């Protein structure tokens, strides 16, 4: 049986014949992996020789300087803020996601409130909070007394939690929404009240979403630059701010690279510890 093909159809057919059997899925993967390798892995690896500056007389000088008190403080603060922000964000996101997943009311408006902020630049949102918290801002107008929140740790945590909330809601909502309503019904009929159903059935089944959300928020929050820059003071400096300062203000590429390497190693190390503690494979692959 012969099929008549004309013009463009014939051309694409010939190209298709030519490619047939030569291009596999793994070839397609090369494009994505190539991009990541070229613009992510390679630049990060370049930081290593840069931070060591092996040719110079003092190759490990930068790393010695990293051990300095103020820099150690910045590291500790980054991870601490990361933990606190993750805790606050997960608690808020879980309650919101629970409402979204199990409320019988229309949830469209609430969902819009979660999605729309994702379209707005971080800087705009941080400045919004800055104005809101400022002594002459709406918060002071409404409450009647001037708060000293601005440029403090709580201000930074509020900002970070606010900005990263949508990243937490989406995975948690997804895992809650995937829970079969019959499981909740079964639990109730088996004699468990609402609260025990949440703790014994709903919460365990939503753990994969919660862990995923926790990882995303922690990584984003610990490496945050704009939050502490806009809402924090000198005592709220996080590691990203220190790196930016070393690189952009002091043009000390060697030191900035050393800070970046140490931060990356610490973060990956922490994730590995987390992995052994919670066994991500188990939690994420359980259901």
């Amino acid at each position, binding site marked *: 049986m012969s099929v008549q093909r004309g013009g463009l159809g014939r051309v694409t057919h010939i190209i298709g014949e030519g490619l047939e059997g030569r291009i596999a899925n793994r070839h397609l993967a090369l494009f994505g992996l190539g991009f990541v390798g070229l613009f992510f892995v390679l630049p990060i690896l370049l930081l290593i020789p840069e931070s060591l500056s092996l040719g110079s007389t003092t190759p490990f000088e930068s790393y010695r300087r990293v051990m300095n008190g103020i820099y150690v403080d910045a590291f500790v603060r980054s991870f601490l803020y990361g933990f606190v922000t993750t805790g606050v964000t997960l608690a808020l996101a879980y309650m919101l996601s629970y409402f979204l997943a199990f409320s019988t009311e229309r949830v469209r408006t609430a969902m819009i409130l979660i999605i729309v902020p994702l379209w707005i630049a971080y800087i705009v949102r941080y400045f919004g909070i800055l104005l809101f918290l400022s002594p002459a801002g709406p918060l002071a107008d409404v409450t009647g007394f001037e708060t000293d929140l601005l440029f403090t740790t709580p201000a930074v945590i509020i900002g970070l939690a606010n900005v990263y909330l949508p990243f937490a809601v989406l995975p948690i909502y997804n895992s809650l929404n995937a829970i079969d309503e*019959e499981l909740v019904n079964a639990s*109730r*009929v*088996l004699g468990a*009240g609402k609260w025990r159903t949440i703790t014994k059935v709903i919460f365990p089944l939503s753990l994969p979403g919660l862990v995923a959300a926790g990882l995303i928020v922690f990584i984003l929050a610990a490496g945050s630059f704009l939050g502490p820059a806009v809402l924090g003071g000198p005592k709220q400096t996080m590691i990203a701010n220190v790196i930016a300062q070393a690189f952009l203000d002091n043009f000390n590429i060697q030191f900035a690279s050393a800070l970046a390497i140490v931060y990356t190693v610490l973060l990956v190390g922490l994730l590995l510890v987390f992995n052994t503690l919670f066994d991500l494979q188990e939690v994420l692959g359980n259901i």
Partner: protein
Amino acid sequence: MLEVDTFTKYYGELCAVEDLSFRIEEGEFVTLLGPSGCGKSTTLHAIAGLVEPTDGRIRLRGTDVTDLPPEKRNIGMAFQSTALFPHMTVRENIAYGLKMHGYSAADVEDRVEESLELVDMPDHGDHKPGELSGGQQQRVSLARSLAYEPDILLLDEPLTGLDRVLREEMRGWLNRIQREVNVTTLYVTHDQEDALSMSDKVVVLNDGQAQQIDSPERIYESPATPFVAEFVGKSTQFTGTVTHENGQAVVYNDKKRITLPDSSIDDDQSVSLYVRPEDIEVSPEPTGAENEFRGIVTDIANLGNRAELSATLEDGSTALAHTTRFPDIDIDDDIFLRFPAERVIVL
């Protein structure tokens, strides 16, 4: 034992169940039978406390449970989806209801083992539900719902989704378990074979209203409404108006004269007549008996133990008859179909 009293449920403007009342006696196996969307599942969920009635009361062992939450009703329920907790082992699933009902740790352990024995799965306690077949999951689901000795067992289409052979096997098995435990059971299904083969009593539902509440035998032999006659079992259908000839009630259906079983029926009444396929006899030659019609065979389906024969009658209507398996008849053959007057269902 269970009393559903004028139960009504509206979802907004939409009426799911209207004024439904029925009773179940201690130890009975009752089936709610109806097509999807007839309100049977809503009724079952209302008895479990998972759906709030718009109106009506539900009483269990003489206690009004209408306003009690599900966890306070002591009900066992097996779901169509099995609803086994995927993050727990089979043993943990069965223990769940026992723990929630306040059994001591030692009792929980004993009863879990007993329940696993009851459903013939003593070696599967440590498996996760995802590792079991569909039939095994249903058995675990049943074990879980029976472990804490509920007052009543509710079954929500538990056999739907199983293949036919397994389904028939599970029917007998389920009946045996039910008798062994002697638990009052309310079974919901759209499958008439489930309903007729397993129940003491069948409630046929359509559009949220009870059509007939009766024994399976009476549901099949003496349906109360055209809906029941058409939904339960197959039949050949005629319609017409009643007249009397020589003291006999007859219906003329497009020149066909059909004698009715009962002559007391009034003249000029519009009736629907149903004849079950097993009541229709087929032969290649006419016998001159009453209620005999000529037809042309359009289809022969061999069902193994018998054959189901479809024929088009002279007026174009379709008749359905059972014959011996592999009958000496071919498609397009001229045949004669007849049925005794006393087997005609008049509605």
